[in-house]
């Protein structure tokens, strides 16, 4: 277990400015998502189809990867394979060096955050500029994103105004329009002079070797159009079988992410600039990254690889809303992170993330591809107990309870004791805010339901 765990990070974050801003943003995202779903009568049917497409692809991923690589190569792309982040970074670096790239523009990509690509490039003396407005702000601040699709949901406009004034020398302002214009002006030159553009991939289409990218700002299009060389880094699970399947995924993605019917720009790229095309990159490299995914595919949490990174589960999660994305301490936060990260990186260091949930089920209800996140959170918790990774206190408590619950006399005594306690310390709200002894730590962050003063058995006897 990591020295500083989720609990410590979350206690530090709760009620901070960051967490308050996150809660407000998450609430608005959820309102917009629900509105979008309500105004699209076919939403539920589309979700069923989207779930089916993702499950079918994952269950045949080896075959679809081969097909994708073959079609992408036929379309004129260079396809590369990377077992882990280090290998992926090396491939990017090699391409950057071969193309003598000094300036790299990047569009937002979770997988390149995961493999910490920017770090590798910067160490090699290459200038890397994030171009998504949110990611650009994160880069200026030297932070990490706190939300899959809204990286700076934790920041206020005042903080962003001050950051811009300090780092890119514009006049102090809090007006989003002016901040936006300042970023446009600053980043435009970077786009037009960049040697290399690096993007992620939202979906790869197996039968045509196409990659699809969705962005609202247009930075994804500029990144993949202006520079002479384009590198697309793709997590290996991002495939769909056909272009029609892609259409279904796009139908649910934007509605679940931002509440738009479609993102401003949904792009399908099938190869580099063709002979005599007016513009576009001359070279296109696709790097397919495993980095622990094939291992997850063989686990009981394989279903998490169906995630399409819309962020809907973060926005509805009471734990994410209160603690913010940074409390998870890693690239992927919220319910998806709580399942994906321990699966990818191991229970030993990251298992405590599976506890970062109230198991209320809101994430399953929100997920456009109906990933059963609560099932997998419980599954990970069970694995943690089985591997003796849970805290000694929790294990002792479970053992004590199990011993009492399997012996009728002991159980009756325990219940009566609870009833007596409730009679001596009555509550008006029905919740106890502090428990004695072993329960103290538990109630330091939550309330405990007051036991009934009389047990079920006592009442049953009386009512007869």
């Amino acid at each position: 277990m990591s020295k500083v765990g989720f609990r410590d990070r979350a206690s530090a974050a709760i009620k901070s400015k960051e967490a308050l801003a996150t809660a407000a943003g998450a609430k608005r995202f959820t309102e917009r998502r629900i509105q979008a779903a309500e105004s699209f009568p076919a939403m539920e049917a589309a979700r069923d189809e989207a779930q089916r497409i993702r499950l079918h692809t994952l269950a045949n991923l080896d075959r679809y990867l081969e097909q994708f690589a073959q079609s992408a190569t036929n379309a004129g792309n260079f396809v590369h394979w990377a077992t882990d982040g280090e290998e992926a970074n090396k491939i990017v670096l090699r391409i950057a060096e071969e193309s003598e790239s000094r300036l790299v523009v990047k569009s937002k990509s979770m997988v390149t955050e995961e493999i910490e690509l920017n770090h590798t490039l910067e160490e090699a003396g290459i200038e890397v500029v994030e171009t998504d407005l949110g990611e650009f702000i994160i880069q200026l601040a030297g932070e990490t994103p706190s939300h899959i699709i809204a990286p700076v949901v934790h920041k206020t406009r005042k903080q962003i105004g001050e950051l811009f004034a300090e780092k890119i020398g514009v006049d102090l302002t809090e007006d989003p329009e002016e901040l936006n214009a300042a970023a446009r002006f600053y980043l435009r030159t970077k786009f037009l002079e960049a040697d290399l553009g690096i993007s992620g991939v939202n979906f790869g289409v197996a039968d045509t070797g196409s990659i699809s990218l969705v962005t609202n700002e247009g930075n994804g299009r500029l990144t993949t159009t202006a520079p002479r060389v384009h590198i697309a880094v793709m997590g290996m699970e991002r495939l769909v079988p056909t272009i029609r399947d892609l259409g279904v995924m796009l139908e649910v993605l934007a509605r679940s992410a931002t509440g738009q019917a479609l993102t401003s720009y949904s792009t399908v790229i099938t190869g580099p600039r063709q002979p005599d095309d007016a513009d576009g990159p001359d070279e296109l490299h696709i790097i397919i990254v495993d980095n622990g995914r094939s291992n997850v595919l063989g686990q009981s949490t394989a279903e998490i690889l169906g995630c399409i990174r819309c962020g809907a589960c973060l926005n509805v999660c009471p734990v994410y809303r209160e603690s913010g994305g940074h409390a998870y301490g890693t690239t992927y936060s919220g319910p998806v992170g709580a399942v994906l990260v321990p699966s990818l990186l191991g229970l030993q260091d990251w298992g405590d993330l599976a506890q970062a949930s109230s198991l209320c089920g809101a994430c399953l209800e929100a997920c456009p591809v109906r990933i059963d996140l609560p099932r997998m959170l419980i599954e990970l918790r069970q694995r943690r107990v089985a591997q003796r990774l849970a805290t000694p206190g929790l294990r002792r408590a479970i053992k004590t309870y199990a011993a009492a619950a399997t012996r009728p006399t002991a159980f009756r005594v325990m219940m009566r004791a609870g009833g007596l306690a409730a009679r001596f310390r009555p509550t008006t709200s029905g919740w106890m805010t502090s428990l004695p002894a072993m329960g103290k730590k538990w109630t330091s962050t939550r309330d405990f339901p007051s036991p009934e003063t009389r047990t079920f058995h006592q009442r049953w006897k009386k009512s007869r």
Partner: protein
Amino acid sequence: MREETFIAAVRRSVGFGRLEDPGPNPLPRMESDFADDLEAIFDTTATRTGATVHYARNENDAISLIAQLMKEAKAESFLSWDKEHIPLPDLTTKLEAAGFRRTSGHVPPDIEARKAHQIGYFDCPIGITGADAGLAETGSIILRSGIGRPRMASLIPKIHIAVLNREHLWPSLRIWLANHSDDATAVANTTIVTGPSRTADIEMIITHGVHGPRYLHILLI
């Protein structure tokens, strides 16, 4: 690493059978909620995305409308698709005759010349393109790259004007794809544009024109 080794690891995990295969998605649901008045629906949905929809009865009306938009923006030049790809064959010639300068959208292959050419786009005020299709359900237009169809024309200028033949209106992306799946992937780049460039990264407040166009005008002819 070699493809074979990579795939072998994936195949091993697939072999554990952790996921039940529901089979490929059958032919997509094709019913449309609104078959009849695509134009009226497109008008509503496109306007909702922040685009402006215009109508022209004939080519002359269309050209003067575009010239008017350019004058209002105090534009002196424009970047555009070649005339055979815009359903107004005389548009670019007439705009040039009216004194607007046409910026070449053909990027030279040499690396330094390429950068120099693209830097010239920095302040480009107007981009004019055709559109391969319009989608009523979402208010989107579809743009395919190719010879004489610079991608930058719909991307770099502050104002993007797209000319769409109303015959090319379709109910939805799903239905267009079912009928044109090859068209979408036969070219290097197909982009579905739904409204102007936007962001809500700062406190969830929506603003337009971050990197792409701030204004999108769709002219139906």
